[in-house]
């Protein structure tokens, strides 16, 4: 399976019915493709939409209805519009059940760095700091390494997005859960061995002798 699709499918399993969910750009956006539309999940966009749906059919897009990237979207039945203060009120106030974001780095403490690389051009944190700080649950969805470098580290070297511990990390190699005692490897991807994961990860991992395999049902 395509690594990105694998990650998105696994993250989709974490989504509870009747919840409010915010998906970041990149892999997180793919998650909605693997959800049952009858689950009653509402997708939030920071720019002020609750109940965002798919890209509208050709000729039916409207310049007043876009996602946080400025792309045309549609509304699902029961959607609503909110202003930016209300939108971040939902995020920071703990009303957002889940946010799924990408990462530059995560570490054993569950800290996430995803907004700036010192010395390089920084586009800005946008809503990331509020999302990571405020959402009830934060899942990092990312490819396990970037340009041959480990992204799951003992300690982030890049500036943090929040001091809040993320709840789950899903990569194409496995699923990781930061706890008080450290970072737990709780699942490995199909056809991936424990040894491969340990070799590709800088962080120290706590794991059972026999790590169960991810089920993504396909």
């Amino acid at each position, binding site marked *: 399976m395509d690594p990105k699709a694998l990650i998105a499918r696994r993250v989709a399993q974490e989504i509870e019915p009747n919840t409010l969910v915010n998906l970041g750009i990149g892999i997180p956006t793919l998650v909605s493709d693997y959800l049952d539309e009858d689950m009653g999940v509402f997708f939030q*966009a920071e*720019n002020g939409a609750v109940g965002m749906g798919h890209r509208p059919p050709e000729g039916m897009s409207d310049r007043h209805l876009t996602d946080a990237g*400025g792309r045309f979207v549609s509304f699902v039945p029961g959607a609503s519009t909110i*202003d930016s203060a209300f939108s971040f009120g939902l995020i*920071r106030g703990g009303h957002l059940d889940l946010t799924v974001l990408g990462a530059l780095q995560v570490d054993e403490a569950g800290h996430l760095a995803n907004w700036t690389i010192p010395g390089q051009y920084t586009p800005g944190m946008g*809503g990331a700091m509020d999302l990571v*700080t405020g959402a009830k649950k934060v899942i990092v969805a990312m490819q396990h390494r970037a340009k041959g470098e480990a992204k799951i580290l003992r300690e982030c070297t890049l500036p943090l997005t*929040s001091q809040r511990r993320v709840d789950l990390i899903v990569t194409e190699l496995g699923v990781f859960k930061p706890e008080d005692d450290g970072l737990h490897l709780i699942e490995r991807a199909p056809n991936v061995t424990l040894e491969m994961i340990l070799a590709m990860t800088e962080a120290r991992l706590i794991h059972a002798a026999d790590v169960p395999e991810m089920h993504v049902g396909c």
Partner: protein
Amino acid sequence: MHLAISLHDAVDLIPDGASVMLSGFMGVGVPDGIVHALAEAGKKDLTLISNDTARDTSGPGPLFAAHCVKKLICSHMGLNTIVQAQYASGELEVELVPQGTLVERIRAAGVGLGGILTPTGVGTLVAEGKQIIEVDGKEYLLELPLSADFALIAARSCDYVGNLSYMLTATNFNPIMALAGRTVICEPEEIVPVGVIPPDAVKTPGVLVDHVIRSTT
């Protein structure tokens, strides 16, 4: 009664060096007419407060292309290559603010609060130089109000007393900035007779709006 003014007169109101809030999100819900007119008028040394810088030719883009902006306060400037170049060259000073903090600082100015305590940014670079206040054992950053000489906003409909309604995600920062500009100038898609916007559909009461731009078409 809020007299509708021309785009030309609106531009004349805004001097070089002014601080200007510009609403919109990735080019949606932006008063595009006045943005282009300010760029064409060659305004200088503006401080621009805007969520993002959209793209080179959308949203606030034209203001950067025309070198109108000295300082930018925003949450994201990632997709505008002119902004990137001006920032890299040192022409443009940039203050990055987390989006939820940005809108809440603007609201604080608009509703007369001296500041707000937010958990966002604690333990990050954003906390540098800011007062940390502990409440119930949890740390918060004290973030201060953010106002501006002008708020330039876009609306779906406006009536002749200045009541505004917005449409879908073109709402975004508009109703918040309408509270926080010392002078509020609105560029609506349409101006309608008083009474056409029902009281419960008004999202910005006309008492907040100083000038409404008459369509030039």
